[in-house]
């Protein structure tokens, strides 16, 4: 049974409501900015900045302090003030060190080099070349740790929304609802490619990229390996998997073994299917190129994180006449795979592949959840574009506000 359109619409309504809630809640946290005081006296020697305030930065681990000051009366754009120097001392020590120099006309600075729970006093001096005005001092300030970073409230809500829809569809699918998923050419071709290896009696080469298991692309490659290995185990074809990382070797062996056990042929599995070559990128490539020209695999899979080696591998594979299926989330390498391989999984498709191939409702549900995320991204872009365009073209009050809000919504403050 398919999910009805109405259900989807309802879900979008819920998202919209949360979205609007988010809008209203964020405005509460909008911070007011200090207004610089202007003066137009014309004295040559730079005068000290006025009214320096220092506050603990919210929200962090007591790592930074925000200093605001009123511009020196001489800082009127005529070049009499060439900058401001920010000094800092631990309170009650009077041992000021220079923290930084900022350009004239700037009246705020965030000092991220303080220690937690140490009290400081700041002093700002206006500079004119090498000469400096006397410092204006701030009240003591104590950088402190906050428990929750409220600045990331937008990230939290948007993340919750997207993660929520993925989890919602996974849970939904649990109750036995089958979802429609469109055909992905590169994945449809996997069976054909493995079949070809069977016919030709030549091995399959599987490259899970050159990054370690701490890259989510490698994990994606390994999960696809799980599905490929199942078919391989069924047909009893030779799979050859040279790897560049030891942890990947361990994980890949575990995965292939599982597939062989699942196919009821645990005896056919051998640790030699996966072998470690070297961690060095091009040493690995040199060896894999050698393997390709000597063993002439019928099918090559390149699924994971790839760098410059993508084209070397794909061209060599092409020259030995292998069918090649590639997939990576490295935008810089996608063009080479697209040009030199028969099928390429582009970015998101790599991550979707294992779910697609598994054909389990739960896994497919997560793909549906991703789509909701895309829909929200598109809705946000549409809303933002409309508001900023109207704000630029006609002004008014609502659209500039909405424009400002949309930008703030997607900006991460830290």
């Amino acid at each position: 049974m398919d999910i009805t359109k109405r259900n989807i619409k309802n879900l979008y309504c819920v998202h919209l409501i949360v979205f609007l809630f988010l809008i209203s809640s964020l405005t509460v946290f909008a911070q007011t900015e200090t207004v610089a005081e202007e003066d137009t006296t014309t004295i040559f020697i730079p005068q000290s900045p006025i009214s320096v305030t220092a506050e603990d930065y919210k929200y962090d681990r007591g790592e930074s302090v925000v200093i605001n000051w009123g511009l020196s009366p001489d800082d009127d754009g005529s070049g009499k003030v060439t900058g401001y120097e920010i000094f800092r001392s631990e309170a009650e020590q009077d041992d000021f060190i220079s923290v930084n120099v900022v350009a004239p006309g700037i009246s705020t600075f965030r000092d991220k080099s303080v220690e937690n729970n140490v009290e400081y006093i700041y002093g700002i001096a206006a500079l004119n070349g090498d000469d400096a005005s006397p410092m204006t001092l701030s009240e003591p300030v104590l950088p402190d740790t906050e428990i929750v970073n409220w600045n990331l409230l937008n990230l939290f809500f948007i993340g919750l929304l997207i993660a929520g829809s993925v989890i919602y569809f996974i849970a939904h699918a649990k109750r036995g609802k089958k979802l429609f998923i469109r055909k992905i050419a590169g994945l449809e071709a996997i069976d054909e490619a493995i079949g070809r290896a069977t016919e030709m009696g030549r091995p399959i080469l599987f490259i899970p990229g050159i990054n370690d298991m701490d890259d989510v692309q490698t994990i994606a490659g390994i999960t696809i390996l799980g599905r490929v290995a199942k078919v391989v185990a069924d047909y009893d074809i030779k799979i050859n998997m040279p790897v560049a990382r030891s942890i990947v070797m361990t994980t890949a062996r575990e995965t292939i073994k599982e597939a062989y056990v699942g196919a009821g042929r645990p005896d056919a599995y051998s640790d030699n299917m996966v072998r470690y070559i070297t961690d060095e990128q091009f040493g690995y490539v040199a060896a894999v190129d050698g393997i390709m020209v000597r063993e002439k695999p019928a099918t090559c899979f390149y699924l994971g994180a790839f760098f410059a080696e993508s084209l070397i591998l794909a061209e060599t594979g092409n020259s030995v006449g292998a069918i090649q299926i590639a997939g990576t989330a490295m935008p810089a390498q996608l063009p080479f795979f697209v040009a030199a391989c028969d099928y390429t999984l582009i970015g998101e498709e790599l991550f979707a592949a294992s779910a697609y191939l598994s054909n389990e409702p739960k896994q497919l549900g997560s793909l549906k959840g991703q789509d909701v995320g895309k829909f929200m991204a598109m809705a946000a872009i549409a809303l933002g574009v409309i508001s900023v365009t109207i704000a630029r073209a006609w002004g008014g009050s609502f659209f500039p506000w909405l424009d400002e809000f949309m930008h703030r919504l997607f900006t991460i403050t830290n």
Partner: protein
Amino acid sequence: MDWTTFGVWLAAVFTLGIISFLYRDNIFYKLCEAIFVGISAGYWLITFFWDNLYSKFYSQVTDPVDPQWTPWIGFVLGALMLTRLFEKIGWLSRWPLAFIIGATAGVYMMFYFVSNAMLQVSATILPIYTGSISGAISNLFIIVGTFCGLIYFFFSKEHKGAFGGAAKIGIWFLMATFGASFGYTVMSRMSLMLGRLDFLFGQWLGLIK
């Protein structure tokens, strides 16, 4: 012949050996490959040993002033990894794997979400009205392209009708992106060879001034 000259000759021979693979697989290349695999595996083991095990573990936990205890967690997990060598307790090696996968999933999820999704959406919110026609066209292309590109990636809806049309435009944008990136790269790839040629004809043969 001094040692540096010997080194330059060695490097030149290896350079030519690898290039010979372009013609076809041969003994010369096999030799280079074998040496490369051996020394590079050794190189990385040494790098791991001094940079990770020595600097990040040994010197941290034995620091006389402020000995750290957290690296021990890594040590224990690493030791569990080695249980694979023993048939009976081999399954314990899945614990560090589970740890790595959980942590990678957690870290990457937020990392990608912030810089790839949030900031890119924010950067795509551009005015179509910019005061200049060329600016408007450029922005329109970015917005429409991003939009249609995203539509192409929809999995749960068949590419048919208007939706299919948009997905088609999305593919065109992706193709233009791939073509452009590829074209841009050709130059870069050529320069890699220039470095080697500069070495062969300059440093080795001395034919270039």
